[in-house]
């Protein structure tokens, strides 16, 4: 599958996706957030408008298409964005958590759960690839990556539930 991206000065961006049967899906993302979806039957044909979505709705539809809400068949051929069973989990460190004040090294979350913290989000600050000496605080949002089950363990450990 090839996706062509091009700029539309003053309007936004255009993505063209080849559908395999010779037709193309064209998605115009306006700077306002509006998405317009077109289909072009042949490369030379005029684009036919299929639908138009506001920003929020477009994101929701996108998530459904991605399979985040529902995966019809759990098999090798259906993969999440990261491939296989790997997922990304967002977890906030609650107030009064044991983790508040400890470093990542001390908490040793990877050994405990099998999920690896890749980002610590603290307000406006983003700590990427945090080291063992990174101190955790209540209110931080941790991004962990790992197998689905490990991420579930991770979530319950951090939230203390």
């Amino acid at each position, binding site marked *: 599958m090839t996706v062509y991206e091009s700029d*539309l*000065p*003053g*309007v936004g961006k*255009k993505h063209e996706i080849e559908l395999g049967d010779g037709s193309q899906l*064209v998605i*115009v993302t306006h700077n*306002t957030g509006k998405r317009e979806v077109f289909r072009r039957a042949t490369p030379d044909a005029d*684009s036919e408008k299929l639908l138009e979505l506001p920003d929020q709705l477009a994101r929701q539809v996108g998530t459904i298409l991605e399979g985040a809400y529902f995966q019809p068949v759990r098999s090798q051929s259906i993969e999440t964005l990261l491939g296989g069973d790997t997922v990304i989990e967002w977890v906030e460190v609650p107030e009064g958590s044991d983790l508040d004040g400890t470093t990542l090294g001390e908490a040793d979350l990877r050994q405990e759960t099998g999920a690896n913290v890749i980002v610590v989000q603290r307000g406006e600050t983003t700590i990427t690839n945090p080291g063992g000496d990174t101190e955790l605080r209540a209110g931080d949002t941790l991004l962990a990556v790992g197998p689905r089950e490990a991420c579930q363990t991770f979530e319950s450990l951090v939230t203390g539930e």
Partner: protein
Amino acid sequence: MVEFSLLELGELFVAVAVAGALGARLGLSVIPLYVVVGMFASPFVAGRLGLPYVLPGETLTLLAEVGIVLLLFFLGLEFSLDRLLAAKTNITRAGVIDIVINLPIGVVIGLALGWSFVEALLLGGIVYISSSAIITKSLIDLGWIANAESEPILGTLVFEDLVIAVYLAVVTSLVLGGDGLGSLARSLAIAFGFLGLLLVAVQYGTRFFSAVLDVQDPEPFVLRTLGVLIPIAGFALSIGVSEAVAAFFVGMGFSTTEHRERIERRLVGIRDVFAAIFFFWIGVNTDPRLVVAAAVPLAIAVVLTAPTKVISGYYGGQVYDLTPKRSLRVGLGLVSRGEFSLVIAALAAQGTGTVMTELIPAFAVGYVLVMSTLGTVLMGESDRVETLVFRTKTETAAAD
């Protein structure tokens, strides 16, 4: 001084609101309609009919000026040097084809009418510059935006935007610089000196622009943007430099910050309000009888410059390897002239002599009315135009 009262401002908003509603119903661009309602509300029409009318006083002129500044500011905001460089070969080729055909034809028409070189150059600019606002809206309305022809069309518009910034800087000096080569050289030096400084500030001032706008609440955000933009534009004007070009550069300065989208979202409404006032003001200043008096240059310009845009656009499409049919659409798509032709006319009105103060502004209004309508119709009826053009072509080919 002519008084411009709150009541008259009220009339203005009623008029442009009605024009906007009419435009939406008829599927026409609002820009020419704002100008037309302005003309109706002017002393020349409403005044003569004994109806309440709006006088083009200093206050209205000032508000219209803010409209020009915001229009060009948004142009700068949207204008990305990186984008131009990324697609530079295609955009430049299409843009050069566009300018070498359409600017000279206007200058030649002006000179043939016996106008001075500066007057002819103003005419050249008016017929050269296509309307980004009208064309972009038509592209979206017709769904062409998802087709291949949208790229050369938008690319050419970007090229024109850059040209118009340089053009306005030069022409402002020519119009306002006074007589004599010495004073002209001085005003050109001031213009390019100031704009050069501004460009350096823009190039290296990303952090400054970012820091100024680093605020959460929408109100201080909008006020700070205007607090940077309006003083710089005003200062430029006070030293005889185009306020529009200064605004364009400030826009470019803000475009490199992470606040670009937020500015567009927050200020688009303000721009639309002041732009509507600007178009209305253009109308209020226009005596329809002068437009009629400009009928000869107007007819010549329409007959010559509609086809030249189609031709230059066609070859622009060819640069992008489009099929003949789509290349023709590029040409049809670029026919509409609008806001920037009127900005040039507003500049001309500040000059001296009846050609600049009366004829060119009246010409520009008539020209924009015709070309924006013609351009929109040509785009809407492109199928018929295609059949017409290509059938004729095959017949000629067969006859050979």
